[in-house]
């Protein structure tokens, strides 16, 4: 947790809509009005299924939505600056320097023809305008910090010579070398084995905390957020449906979708059956303008099919977008 008494908001997203046009049909609305605030020193976990808009959100924050995808409306403020108003040059200075991203599949994303040491050092040379020697020394220190054994030798290694866990550490070194204030981790540990995953997560958490940075931790695995995040946000079909402090969320999940996600981990088919509809009963509820989850929801009523629920606060720090939140 941050040590400052009143941590200020570092990232502020308001009403963000992103869509991808599709030939001859309506565009795919990947994000439908995302509101999200991240305070300084805070680590927020964003959980959703594949296709729920997690990666689009990460790319939108980085201002990297590529054509034909477009930001329809909404604003993204980073440390008080509206990112959409900045020039490409100003953005380049922010990306990697203030906002960094830890990507999945490190072995495909790293440049296979450049040694990993050089790839790390290049970031420092560009963003911090350091001479080569100093950048190299800094990269070496970074390799050490992410606990890569024998960093002197690995400095000269090519990505294919590293194991998955080590390549992931290299990507972390690249993300962290400029001491960014905000880190986005996009499903960064999903390709790793469980024993390596916990090591990498611990390390990432330690380094982020040391630097006093904030993190948006995007994942499909709700289990990770329980142990490594201060806040949990659940995203469904491009909308945040529930957001809460970790303890509050896991003690008292409110949205039927959150409960369904949690029940999927349960070994009790009866419990799961209670919270999820069989596949053949699932219908598309989008057309009616109601709740996007209504078609899959076991608690759906007529109101849900007609009226789109607004995000409302159940108690301080716990918001839910549902007409019939689960009461206990």
């Amino acid at each position, binding site marked *: 947790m941050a040590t400052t008494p009143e941590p200020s908001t570092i990232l502020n997203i308001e009403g963000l809509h992103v869509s991808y046009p599709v030939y001859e049909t309506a565009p795919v609305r990947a994000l439908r009005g995302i509101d999200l605030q991240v305070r300084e020193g805070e680590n927020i976990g964003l959980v959703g299924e594949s296709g729920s808009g997690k990666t689009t959100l990460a790319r939108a924050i980085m201002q990297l939505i590529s054509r034909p995808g477009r930001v329809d409306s909404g604003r993204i403020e980073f440390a008080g600056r509206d990112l959409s108003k900045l020039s490409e040059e100003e953005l380049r200075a922010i990306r990697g320097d203030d906002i960094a991203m830890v990507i999945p599949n490190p072995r495909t994303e790293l440049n296979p023809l450049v040694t990993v040491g050089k790839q790390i050092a290049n970031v420092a040379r560009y963003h911090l305008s350091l001479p080569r020697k100093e950048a190299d020394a800094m990269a070496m220190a970074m390799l050490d910090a992410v606990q890569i054994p024998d960093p002197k030798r690995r400095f000269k290694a090519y990505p294919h010579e590293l*194991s*998955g866990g080590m390549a992931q550490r290299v990507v972390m070194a690249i993300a962290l070398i400029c001491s960014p204030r905000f880190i986005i981790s996009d499903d960064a540990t999903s390709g790793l084995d469980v*024993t390596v995953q916990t090591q990498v997560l611990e390390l990432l958490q330690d380094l982020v905390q040391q630097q006093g940075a904030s993190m948006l931790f995007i994942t499909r695995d709700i289990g990770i*957020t329980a142990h490594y995040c201060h806040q949990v946000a659940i995203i469904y079909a491009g909308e945040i449906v529930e957001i809460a402090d970790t303890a509050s969320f896991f003690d008292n999940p409110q949205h039927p979708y959150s409960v369904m996600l949690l*029940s999927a981990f349960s070994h009790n088919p009866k*419990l799961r059956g209670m919270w999820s509809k069989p596949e053949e009963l699932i219908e598309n509820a989008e057309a009616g303008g109601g709740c996007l989850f209504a078609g899959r929801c076991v608690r759906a009523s007529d109101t849900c099919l007609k009226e789109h629920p607004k995000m409302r606060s159940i108690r301080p720090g716990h918001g839910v977008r549902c007409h019939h939140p689960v009461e206990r």
Partner: protein
Amino acid sequence: MSVVLSVQNLIKHFPIAGSRSVVQAVNNVSFSVSRGETLALVGESGSGKTTVGRCILGLIDPTGGEITFQGNRIDKRNNVRSRHLRGKIQLVFQEPAESLDPRIRIGVTIGEPLRSLGSAREDRDKQVREMARRVGLEEEALYQYPAELSAGQQQRVGIARAIITDPELIVLDEPTSALDPTARSEVIDLLITLQKELDTAYLFISHDLSTVRYLSHRVAVMYLGMIVEQGSSQDIFSRPRHPYSIGLLSSVLLPNPRLERHSEVSLQGEIPSPIDLPNGCFLASRCPFVEAQCSERMPDADDIGSGHLVHCFKHRDVIDDEKGTLDYYERFQAEAEKLLSSGQQ
């Protein structure tokens, strides 16, 4: 229970071109699977799980050891492709989308295994419909292409294709790792239901321990081509004895912040390369309990009751039995049930 598959001292080494060293992918693995039983092979990537699966299908020839399927030896000449074994052992793959032909309709894909068994066309159609019903696919899905289905449905197709020949053994190679949690639990439920109906033996290869806990009767933990511990699912999850099993189990993150991971045993580093393995215990370089004899020779299997085998010199000191169960899944289950069973309309 009758044993369907028995593997004795299986060894598989892959030579490395231009070198005398070999990749020791599987080192002396023994286990058996009976009718209606699920044996899970768990371990990190590179531990040899998939190689064991491929040897069982006879797709690669073992370097040593014996694989017996219903009394018949399986090797390169006598394998799933041989006439008398065709359709008896089936495989379900990891990536459902990639294991289906994108240009063949679902119905044809499901019926394909029957073609090589020489069944008549009408017969085949009837069976395809029956299988689709069993795995919970709509009839119209039979006329669709794989890309039109969700990942969960695609995996149902993979399962339908496997069970259509009424196999004795199904090798499930990480069938759920590519699926979202909700689809995953549905596929697991389906596999359990089918096993009860068909009395098939499953060899379930996975690194997803929460799935393994739920699905399997027995568990074998693999590390660098060796089964370091095997026993009933209950024993392995509540009283693991091998430092590696404990480390593996404590790495799983359950969605409950209060279930702190037991940190007594933490594994350092990563799985070493399987080339030129040391003489001693393979875990010696990562194990917090390591002592002199560990790097000298490989510990033999120690039977600690009811078929619970452990390869470790110090397994008695690793876990304090007084502390009772370590089964975090059970605690998680209990808490989840309390939490989730309330608040229904």
